[in-house]
């Protein structure tokens, strides 16, 4: 029996791995063997802890000490002081976890206090590459219970009663989807998992797959039993190599333990799983396009109906849920639908994971009960806006969603409230913007994305989004006319109502919502040829303030096109506007801050 007095948990999520956590693990290993601690201290690489901003993160138990921004050179100190001598290295701890020089446990840190972890409960706690750790935290008990005690109808009833809705964005009641697939006629049925998390700025599903892959596997087996399927597919985007790797290990281990395969728990039920990789097409997150892609075709959507529950993979009834939706299932089975329905608001039950990013202090992953307000998320959990800047908007729902302004910060988050505000829950990306972000430019950014990702099958999306992008480019270049804004609106409404799939139907949302809340910014670009946030390059001009100019000539030397004139030491410098390419080099170079951008 392995016995360890301390466990060192090192975050192996993509965020922390990118900032060097793998290296840190190696150095820890070396240090531990140097001090002969290998048999006393256990190193565990876990999934994402959520607070990516503070990465790489190391947590040491039993003290629960939360070290942030750990560097290779800190490892020696942590080993010598904390692991060898038992003195927590306070100055390396996450700032907030030290109050009045007392160390607080990580659960008391503001970032975690408001959170309630259901889908993420094991992320950052277990080693995702060790199935026994998952089992230790009640893993596969739900599957055992379902197979030995419940009928498929009972399982569906439990999911329906819990009020769980699809976490991929649409918010369709999960239990109903299961029931439709259960009722559909077919000699063969399939269960599929949508892990093609394509929304830019969203990484919830990746973190679940990296941190707790068995939860998804267990849930898919439960779903297979409920709807009558013996084969499952997990469709993961190829941009997530760590997630794919861990998922494959998890599937192999589950097979080895007989939790996948034939006659699971000694019953008649058999279930197998396969991973399928995407290849960089955003539209494959749309359910029918995803099914085509699994079949090995171009990932283009099919008209609905028939819905996948009736005709899905290879024309057979197929249940398709998102990663986070599945991750909730085992807990619902174990703790009961009443427990789950007790969390959240009237129509949106349970918790939701969000990826908080952009202009925010605590970038990272968080899970909150539905009904928490945006203000709580951004200013309490998220720690507010950095550098004392003003909050401008929060974008939810990715390229399908919209922006929400400061006036609506007290809105409780649920599916229906966000739609009423012209945005949507989406998969859970939440990007915060401050006064330095131009909303017209943001709309252009999202349109640029959808134009690139439109599959080209239906005309409104293929042609319409392209025309919208052209208009937006015109406006950001200062060539827009008032008629352009009207044209933009009418195009947006047409595309919304006439596109084939969700991608096209929601593509105009970023434009419509910025038009709704930031009309003044569009007007400034069109009427005054001015970008209030100072982002749109064509609308900017650089000016030297004569009184502040020290006549040093540094700017003139830096200018790549030589359009700054003046006489060193005698005459204030000036920029010839017609030749200026607005690169900003002069402003960066000026030691006296005598150059302003307007």
């Amino acid at each position, binding site marked *: *029996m*392995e*016995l*360890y*007095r*301390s*466990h060192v*948990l090192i975050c192996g999520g993509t965020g922390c791995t990118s900032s060097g956590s793998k290296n840190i693990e190696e150095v820890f290993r070396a240090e531990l063997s140097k001090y002969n601690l290998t048999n*006393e201290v256990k190193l565990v690489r876990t999934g994402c802890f959520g607070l990516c901003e503070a990465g790489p993160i190391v947590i040491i*138990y*039993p*003290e*629960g000490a939360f070290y942030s921004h750990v560097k290779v050179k800190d490892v020696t100190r942590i080993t010598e002081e904390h692991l*060898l*001598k*038992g*003195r927590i290295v306070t100055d390396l701890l996450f700032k907030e976890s030290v109050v009045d020089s007392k160390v607080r*446990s990580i*659960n008391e840190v503001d970032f975690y206090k408001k959170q309630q972890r259901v889908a993420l409960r094991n992320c950052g*706690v*277990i080693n995702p590459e060790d199935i*026994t*750790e998952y*089992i*230790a*935290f*009640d*893993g*596969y*008990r739900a599957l*055992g*219970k379902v197979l*030995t005690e419940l009928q498929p109808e009972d399982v569906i009833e439990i999911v329906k009663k819990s009020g769980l809705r699809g976490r991929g964005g649409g918010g369709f009641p999960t239990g109903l989807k299961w029931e439709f697939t259960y009722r559909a006629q077919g000699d063969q049925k399939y269960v599929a998992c949508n892990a093609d998390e394509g929304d830019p700025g969203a990484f919830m599903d990746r973190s679940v797959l990296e941190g707790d892959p068995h939860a998804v596997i267990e849930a898919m087996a439960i779903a297979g039993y409920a709807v009558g399927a013996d084969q499952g597919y997990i469709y993961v985007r190829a941009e997530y190599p760590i997630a794919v790797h861990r998922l494959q290990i998890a599937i192999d281990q589950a097979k080895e*333990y*007989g*939790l996948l395969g034939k006659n*699971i*728990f*000694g019953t008649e039920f058999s279930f197998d799983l396969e991973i399928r990789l995407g290849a960089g097409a955003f539209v494959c997150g749309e359910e029918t396009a995803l099914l085509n892609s699994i079949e090995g075709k171009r990932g283009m959507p099919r008209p609905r109906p028939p819905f996948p529950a009736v005709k899905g993979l290879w024309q057979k009834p197929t249940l398709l849920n998102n990663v986070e939706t599945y991750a909730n299932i085992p807990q619902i089975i174990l703790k009961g639908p009443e427990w789950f329905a007790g969390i959240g608001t009237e129509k949106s039950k349970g918790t939701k994971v969000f990826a908080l990013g952009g202009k925010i202090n605590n970038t990272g992953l968080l899970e909150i009960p539905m009904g928490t307000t945006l203000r709580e998320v951004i200013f309490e959990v998220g720690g507010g806006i950095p550098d004392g800047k003003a909050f401008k908007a929060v974008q939810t729902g990715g390229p399908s969603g919209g922006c929400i302004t400061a006036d609506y910060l007290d809105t409780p988050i649920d599916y229906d409230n966000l739609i009423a505000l012209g945005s949507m829950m989406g998969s859970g990306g939440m990007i915060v913007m401050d006064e330095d972000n131009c909303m017209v430019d943001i709309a252009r950014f999202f349109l640029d994305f959808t134009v690139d990702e439109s599959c080209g099958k239906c005309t409104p999306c293929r042609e319409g989004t392209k025309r919208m992008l052209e208009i937006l480019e015109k406006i950001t270049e200062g060539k827009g006319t008032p008629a352009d804004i009207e044209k933009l609106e009418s195009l947006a409404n047409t595309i919304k109502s006439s596109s084939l799939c969700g991608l096209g139907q929601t593509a105009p949302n970023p434009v419509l919502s910025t038009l709704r809340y930031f009309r003044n910014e569009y007007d400034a670009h069109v009427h005054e040829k001015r970008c209030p946030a100072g982002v749109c390059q064509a609308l900017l001009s650089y000016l030297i303030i004569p009184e502040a100019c020290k006549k040093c000539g540094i700017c003139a030397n830096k200018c790549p096109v030589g359009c700054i004139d003046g006489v060193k030491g005698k005459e204030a410098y000036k920029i010839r506007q017609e030749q200026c390419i607005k690169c900003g080099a002069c402003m960066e170079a000026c030691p006296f801050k005598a150059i302003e951008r307007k």
Partner: protein
Amino acid sequence: MKSLEELEKIREEALKKVDIRHDREGTRIVVGMATCGISAGARPVLMALVEEVKKRNLKEVVVSQTGCIGVCRLEPIVEVYRPGHEKVTYVEMTVDKAKRVLLEHIVNGNVIDEYTIGAVK
């Protein structure tokens, strides 16, 4: 996997390995592990305590380490914190003494006075 019992068995085994990663309300046993403590033999004491807690499956007991407790001549020192009780400080501990403390004090609730700092001073 053939039965629920089989899963339960794996779970119990595995739980012992990961149990340390919980925040607990119960008893905290702290071993002084500064240079003085270590050189006086605190490490085997700590390991013995960890082992005993695991063996007896004491879920609400945490064994942890701390820095110098300040009475270096009496090391190794072990402190026991129980909710609602005064802190008890045991000094000049050995592996055998530690095992006795665990059994009599932690499990049965009787402080072993002769090992405490008051008795030695």
